[in-house]
């Protein structure tokens, strides 16, 4: 094994306050009936709720102060993402945070000055890194930029229809680069909605053929590599945080039902066949959550966080998928209906599992890191 794993765990006063606010706000802003209503809408988000998020300063939490943000870093976004996951938020918050990381880690001063203040002020942004083969390797890019014109297409692009900025990974002369493209540059006919399991999410496929990119819209070289890495790591962290919130809510849902429903004359929660797996859900949550806040702490300390992040992503995916699967089962016939909220969590759990590497992918990636080749 390489070095001993650390057990850094920092949680600042600011983070603590953000967590308190987020728990309250998300609960009030996203009751489950609202979540179901938003499933039927085009954007998946309520404009007034988004505005409140902006007013709370959340879109600027990870933005440097020079650009109007509060510069608390990615770790401060974790309690927000967790609380949103707990209440099944849709909307462009996560995508915007990922694009923010791309900008902070890779964009030059002018690009940052152009985009970051807009983001702080409420413009949505997103990243387009995935391609059709379903690979999680962000280096596997077929989209090319030749003589200023794109060729190729991207998929599973969150919130492409409302994002003002789309950060697109491309190859220029074989080298990785990122195009910071105003979405207005892409004809709307080239953007089509994906049908994904999680109906609270809005995901799109984007055909880029013929779209022009100006030289000053590019991130290249080492900056592009840094941006890709920072964005990927942010995605692992925020997806894991979202999952932790979701497991929490799933457990609440199950416990409530197990304390209500009666069969053969007893509350069903008194049966060990239901009680003990529910305890397993709880232990899965506690473990995943410890990994998540640890990974966030390492990032704050600018420590190497790859192992911690991969563990956080893998543990939270496994725990959420276990919990949501059991939630369906434990609700019996009602669990099999669309009306039962358990399906909302299961769909979110599956969505998170298959974004930016599922748990077996991360377990495999951890092997050389922890055991050598």
């Amino acid at each position: 094994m390489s070095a001993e794993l650390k057990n850094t765990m920092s949680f600042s006063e600011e983070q603590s306050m953000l967590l308190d606010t987020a728990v309250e706000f998300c609960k009030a802003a996203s009751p489950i009936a609202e979540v179901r209503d938003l499933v039927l809408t085009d954007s998946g988000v309520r404009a007034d709720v988004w505005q409140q998020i902006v007013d709370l300063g959340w879109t600027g939490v990870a933005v440097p102060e020079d650009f109007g943000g509060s510069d608390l870093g990615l770790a401060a976004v974790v309690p927000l993402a967790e609380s949103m996951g707990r209440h099944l938020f849709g909307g462009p918050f996560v995508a915007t945070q990922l694009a923010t990381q791309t900008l902070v880690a890779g964009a030059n001063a002018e690009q940052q000055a152009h985009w970051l203040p807009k983001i702080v002020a409420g413009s949505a942004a997103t990243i387009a890194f995935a391609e059709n083969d379903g690979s999680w390797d962000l280096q596997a890019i077929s989209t090319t930029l030749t003589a200023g014109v794109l060729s190729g297409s991207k998929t599973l692009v969150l919130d492409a229809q409302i994002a003002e900025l789309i950060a697109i990974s491309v190859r220029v002369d074989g080298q990785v680069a990122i195009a910071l493209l105003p979405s207005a540059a892409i004809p709307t006919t080239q953007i089509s909605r994906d049908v994904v399991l999680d109906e609270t999410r809005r995901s799109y496929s984007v055909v880029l053929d013929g779209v022009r990119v100006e030289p000053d819209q590019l991130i290249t070289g080492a900056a592009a590599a840094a941006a890709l890495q920072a964005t990927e790591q942010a995605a692992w962290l925020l997806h894991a945080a979202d999952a932790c919130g979701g497991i929490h809510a799933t457990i609440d849902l199950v416990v409530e039902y197990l304390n209500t429903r009666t069969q053969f004359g007893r509350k069903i929660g008194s049966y060990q066949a239901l009680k003990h797996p529910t305890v397993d859900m709880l232990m899965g949550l506690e473990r995943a959550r410890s990994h998540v806040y640890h990974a966030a702490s390492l990032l704050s300390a600018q420590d190497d966080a790859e192992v911690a992040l991969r563990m956080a992503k893998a543990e939270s995916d496994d725990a959420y998928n276990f919990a949501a699967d059991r939630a369906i089962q434990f609700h019996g016939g009602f669990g099999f209906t669309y009306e039962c909220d358990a399906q909302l969590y299961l769909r979110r759990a599956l969505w998170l599992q298959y974004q930016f590497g599922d748990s077996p992918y991360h377990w495999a990636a951890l092997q050389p890191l922890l055991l050598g080749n």
Partner: protein
Amino acid sequence: MSELAEFRSEVSAWLSENRPAEPDFLLPETFMEVGTDSQFHYLRDWQQQVYEAGYLGMSWPREYGGGGKPQALQDIVTAEMARLNTPFMMNTIGLNWAGPLILSRGSEDEKQRYIQAILSASEIWCQGFSEPDHGSDLGSVQTRAVRDGDDYIVNGSKIWTSLGQHAKHMILLARTDPDASNKYAGLSFFLAPMESPGIEVQPIRKLTGEFGFNQTFFNDARIPATCRMGAEGEGWQVAMSTLTFERGVSGGQAGGTSMIAMKVADVVELARRAKRHGKPAIEDPWVRDQLVRFLSEEQGDRLATARAKHPALVVDRPGALALSGKLRHTEHRRRLCQFAIALQGANGARYMGDAQAIEGGKWQRSYFNAFSATIGGGTSQVQANIIGERVLGLPKH
């Protein structure tokens, strides 16, 4: 070539030539999943075509619309359908439950009236045994049927009444005597016409997002007393004999496949085609490990059926294999579907209706639908109780 072998190749050729074109929507995998009119018509047309070609109900009596031929021929057809993965015969309740029942216990009139229409799918049947809140304990049926002159007046509701909105008839279990000596003795069995006033079918949306099962409400619904099968109070016995047909224990079914069976081999094929981070999933060590375990589990289940045919090899706990079948198969299927999604990389998150969904999103849908079997007909948790108590003799709660 033997006569049977010749017949097999004839069937095989007919099925290959006549199987309907793959539709532009995802087909259901059992009759319980028929959720749209397009699915319904596609499957009904196919059953009709198979019947007209003489390949369904082959062993049922000629005088009622059957083929009057040996069962062995029908078995060949069924096996070929499974092998070629043709769409299933959708009037399942008619073919496997009501039809055999009517043939074995029905009057001459009833046989004339119902059998041919079951085979041709011109009259669809549904099932009215389960009720909300009573799970799989049929003894607890609460739906009331009160005799009123030549009719019964029915009140109550039934759940999981798949195909209810298309059905012309329902096999219905209702309580005619609430004061009977035990809860089983007060039940009666009906071949109930669905068009009776006071019967309302309400579709229930599944977690898949589709429709496909229903709740059927009876509000002072009038059902002619002539529709009763068996004497008043004999409903439980009639229902039990129906269940023996359903489980294939006593034979008598019309034949043809009644579902799209899920095989691990299909998932192996998926693993060859689908990619995980740039490589065929089948090259991933974790995937390979999981696949051989799934194959061994599936093979163990197949072999259990083979072993059960040798009495000497099942003397120890005779009920073990039969009573554990539902639990083993349904949980296997749920886990297998879950795993099949994991082969798809980032595309695992796509769903039915997405242009890039792997195999149209069928594995995602199958995973969701798998819960119908781990929940319906007694949850897996209840099944484990039953095995523990009846097979192992562990104390009840």
